[in-house]
């Protein structure tokens, strides 16, 4: 292949490096207003009245809205395909505040400073209600109901309990199987609330244009879902809405959600003026979305020889005040994770409860990091109890080529799923290469007496898009000079999808990569795509690009076949040249001129792609740590990721994604945690106390790509975006246990927690 698999220059690299005005905020409109949200100081309260008279008298204040000013149309802000699997439990502005930080009113003013100043002059009459901030209490308490709406759609037990979603699925018979096992091991694992911490905050600018259409320029992962959702809740036709996604400074799932767009939409329509709303970093921590905190109970039944017979996973999760992704994230915790060991008896059960805490939602990995942490720590625990080598236990039981994912048919995206059979896997090879790179079995000596070294590993699998749900479109159009316009709905949020899609287009047409001009994610100008989530873009949107480009190539071959009097199939497209079976030859530019001016056709095609398969990418990840036995501090010395993502389209960018996932996963393991007080107030709303890894913290990272050829993927590609974030936390925590014999059942494994573990060990 000429372009696929090459480290071409990232298609937006130059403009980003030059600091061109390409992000949502690098833009202004005449007369633009600035919005600020007044947030609830109470975890649970009815909003009886909002008196904005004093605020409206202030200089520059244009409008203040609260729940009386907007129609109550229940919806979900999750940003998923229609029909949406998340509960319709949300209003643009609600008569009830359900967490500290929930929307109460919104101010628009001529400047940000004026909008901020106005917040203090809005008088709100609250009726405080008792609150629930502990997920165990939410599970059992039905006296306090966080959602008691009369007609909620999709809340599991609306009006009766605080359960937002539940799943209880079984293959085989776990209870019976456990009775026959030589050993049964049960443990609880505790996962923290963490934030994606993308550099660019949530930001949107909306205005009504000269055709009376609402234009929304926004930092989003889902422009097309957003258009559909906005049309419904703003009650204007989709035809009157255009969503434009400029460059995006990171999303990680947090921008799959509709977090600010509805407010700028409402306010632009009300005021007739452009309105901008940008979150502060504090708002990102209070009012954006978190990875769901969970408690996972794992039970494994195993025979003496290490054969796993049964696995049971119970998940209790905190969705916070609203049920964004409550069903599907928690579904993934089992569905994406348990198939790693495809045993005959699997039971997956989950309860996801409402609390009066800030909202959980989509975050890279989408439930799998939680499940993978529990399962892969549990494998070490099972191995220890069995007295078996932890690598051997995994090798004996992990999923292999041709195996059927036992859960896939039972558990899809919030409903029954499609059967998944492993058609490509590099997992064995990844384990082998990873072990070699980390020096498995050869623990190095610690560098001082109070330090101990340990090695840990974890296996992970994910999916490539949502089978039977995710799809995207692409249009390819050839220009006079042999360049092509590629337009895709697919959403580049910094991960580089524009680049890999352009690579595939160039490869398929046999033209240089530089000849591809890409336009992505503008609901007026590009075909549909579900957006950037679920590790879908390379695999799904790439499929559409390959189909569209192949069709254009077919059109050209048809024209040239008549002209050259040969079979179209015998015409070869390569390196910018088109050659026939004889000595016929033209450059792609000559072909384009011929097609446009002699044959008088516009070589152009639009194609759609959907897959009923979601082939799993695999990762084997390894950590080497040094633990200070007196302070509890963990130094991550080295981290090895061996990843099978099918055919690698752009090696450098895949390595970048994997290294980024290791940095994020390292934070999950060691220091990232949003702390709340008992009322659900965020204690760590900034980077002073919410610690993320910097370049000084990340270890030496070894990234090994283990290519396979996935028969259902474009050029054999699978996904890479999420799978590498699953393994770091369990690998690191398993390494800590290997070093000092202390099992951290709760992450992050902060120095103090490890120190406590060490003290209990010696007691």
């Amino acid at each position, binding site marked *: 292949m000429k372009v696929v698999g090459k480290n071409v220059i990232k298609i937006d690299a130059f403009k980003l490096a030059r600091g061109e005005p390409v992000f949502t905020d690098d833009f202004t409109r005449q007369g633009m207003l600035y919005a600020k949200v007044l947030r609830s100081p109470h975890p649970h309260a009815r909003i009886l009245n909002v008196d904005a008279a004093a605020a409206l008298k202030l200089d520059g204040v244009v409008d203040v809205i609260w729940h009386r000013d907007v129609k109550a149309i229940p919806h979900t802000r999750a940003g998923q395909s229609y029909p949406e699997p998340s509960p319709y439990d949300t209003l643009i502005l609600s008569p009830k505040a359900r967490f500290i930080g929930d929307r109460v009113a919104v101010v628009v003013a001529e400047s940000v400073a004026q909008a901020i100043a106005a917040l203090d002059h809005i008088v709100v009459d609250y009726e405080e209600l008792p609150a629930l901030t502990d997920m165990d209490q939410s599970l059992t308490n039905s006296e306090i109901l966080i959602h008691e709406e009369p007609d909620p759609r999709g809340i599991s037990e609306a009006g009766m309990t605080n359960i937002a979603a539940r799943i209880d699925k079984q293959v085989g018979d776990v209870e019976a199987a456990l009775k026959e096992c030589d050993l049964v091991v049960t443990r609880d694992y505790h996962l923290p609330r963490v934030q994606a911490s993308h550099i660019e905050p949530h930001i949107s600018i909306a205005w009504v244009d000269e055709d009376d259409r609402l234009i929304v320029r926004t930092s989003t992962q889902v422009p097309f879902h957003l258009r559909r959702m906005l049309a419904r809740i703003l009650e204007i036709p989709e035809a009157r809405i255009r969503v434009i996604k400029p460059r995006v400074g990171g999303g990680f799932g947090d921008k799959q959600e509709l977090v600010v767009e509805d407010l700028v939409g409402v306010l632009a329509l009300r005021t007739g003026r452009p309105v901008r709303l940008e979150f502060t970093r504090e708002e990102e921590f209070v009012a954006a979305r978190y990875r769901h905190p969970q408690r996972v109970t794992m039970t494994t039944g195993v025979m003496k020889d290490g054969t796993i017979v049964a696995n049971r996973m119970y998940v209790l999760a905190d969705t916070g005040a609203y049920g964004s992704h409550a069903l599907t994230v928690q579904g993934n915790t089992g569905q994406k994770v348990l198939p790693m060991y495809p045993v005959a008896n699997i039971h997956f059960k989950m309860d996801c409860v409402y609390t009066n805490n800030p909202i959980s939602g989509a975050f890279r990995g989408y439930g799998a990091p939680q499940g993978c942490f529990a399962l892969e720590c549990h494998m070490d625990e099972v191995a220890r109890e069995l007295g078996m080598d932890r690598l051997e236990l995994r090798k004996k039981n992990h999923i292999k080529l041709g195996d059927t994912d036992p859960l896939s048919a039972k558990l899809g995206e919030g409903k029954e799923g499609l059967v998944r059979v492993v058609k490509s896997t590099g997992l064995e090879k990844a384990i082998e290469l990873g072990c070699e790179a980390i020096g498995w079995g050869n623990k190095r000596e610690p560098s001082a007496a109070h330090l101990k070294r340990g090695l840990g590993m974890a296996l992970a699998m994910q999916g490539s898009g949502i089978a039977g749900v995710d799809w995207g479109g692409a249009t390819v159009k050839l220009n006079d000079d042999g360049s092509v316009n590629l337009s895709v709905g697919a959403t580049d949020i910094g991960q580089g999808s524009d680049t890999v899609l352009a690579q595939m287009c160039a490869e398929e047409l046999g033209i240089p990569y530089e000849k591809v001009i890409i336009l992505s994610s503008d609901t007026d100008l590009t075909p549909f795509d579900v957006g950037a989530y679920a590790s879908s873009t390379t695999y799904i949107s790439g499929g559409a690009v390959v189909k569209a480009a192949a069709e254009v190539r077919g059109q050209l071959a048809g024209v040239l076949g008549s002209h050259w009097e040969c079979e179209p199939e015998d015409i070869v497209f390569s390196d910018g040249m088109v050659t026939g079976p004889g000595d016929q030859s033209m450059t792609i530019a000559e072909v384009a001129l011929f097609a446009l001016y002699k044959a008088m056709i516009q070589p152009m095609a639009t194609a759609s792609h959907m897959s009923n398969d979601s082939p799993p990418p695999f990762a084997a990840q390894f950590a080497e740590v040094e633990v200070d036995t007196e*302070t509890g501090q963990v130094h991550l010395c080295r981290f090895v990721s061996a990843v099978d993502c099918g055919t690698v389209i752009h090696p450098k960018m895949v390595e970048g994604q994997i290294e980024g996932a290791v940095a994020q996963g390292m934070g999950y393991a060691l220091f990232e945690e949003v702390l709340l007080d008992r009322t659900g107030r965020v204690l760590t709303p900034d980077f002073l106390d919410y610690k993320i890894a910097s370049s000084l913290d990340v270890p030496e990272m070894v990234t090994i790509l283990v290519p396979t050829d996935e028969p259902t993927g474009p050029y054999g590609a699978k996904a890479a975006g999420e799978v590498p974030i699953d393994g770091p936390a369990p690998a690191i925590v398993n390494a800590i246990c290997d070093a000092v014999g202390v099992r951290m059942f709760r992450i992050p494994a902060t120095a103090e927690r490890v120190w406590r573990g060490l003290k209990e060990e010696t007691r």
Partner: protein
Amino acid sequence: MWKLQEYRIATNPAEAVALMRKGPGKGAYIAGGTDMLLEHPACDFVVDINRAGIGDVARTPGGDLFLGAAATLQELVGNEFVTGFAGGAVSMAASQCGNRPVRSTATVGGNLCNALPSADMAPVLLALDATCYIADEDYQESLPLTDFFVGPRLTVLEDRLLVGVALPGECAGWRCASHKLTRTAEDISLVQVAVALGVDDGRIQEARIALGAVAPVPMRASLAETMLTGQEIAAITPDVMGDVAAIAAGECDPLDDHRASAEYRRDMVSVLTRRLVTRILSDDGDNSQDGAA
């Protein structure tokens, strides 16, 4: 939004104090501004002291090391007078503050005048017997750094200006090391300990143990110091070391908060004190490396 009305620039310390007192309203001194730009303290004007001639680092004729209040922390990292003083311990402590861009702007005076219990430069300067020089409009006075901190975010200054700190020449040959315990590489300290020992003739003649982030103000562990003073190095067994560390831990008064528990902080004072004393006594004065890692 920082509602600042006026930005005043002083060309010498006395003028700075005069500009501060001129009013109207409330003023604040600004040098690097790394904290102020984040916190936007309530003030109507600021007095910039970057051009007040107090940014120098120098050895005085008497051998003291003078650190001007407006000297950046990065200057302390690389300055040869500083790297050559007490084994470079002050440079080492400065290098653990924030990150390079922050250190290139933040000043030693700002770090001290902010008076956080966790001020990164305080322990090592306390351990090296620093004296503060304070300017008023018509006079200057000096006092020991131990008397400078009054409470969290509170110093003796009121509206006067810290001109700099001086470390006595006698300390130049002391063995000194400090350690800052943090959650990640760029973090405020959970616990900080600095130890300085004046060793002569196989005996500890002078001992200083200073603690940060474990009391309302940066402090000295004087009981532990007394226990070490006069000891023959050969007689300092691991048991003695353990006792010294335990006494230092008993002297601090740490807070329980979301960053760490008081119990953990207290135990870390003990661990770090023991490690630093051990480390200082076991090497020959080269403390360019971190003392406790």
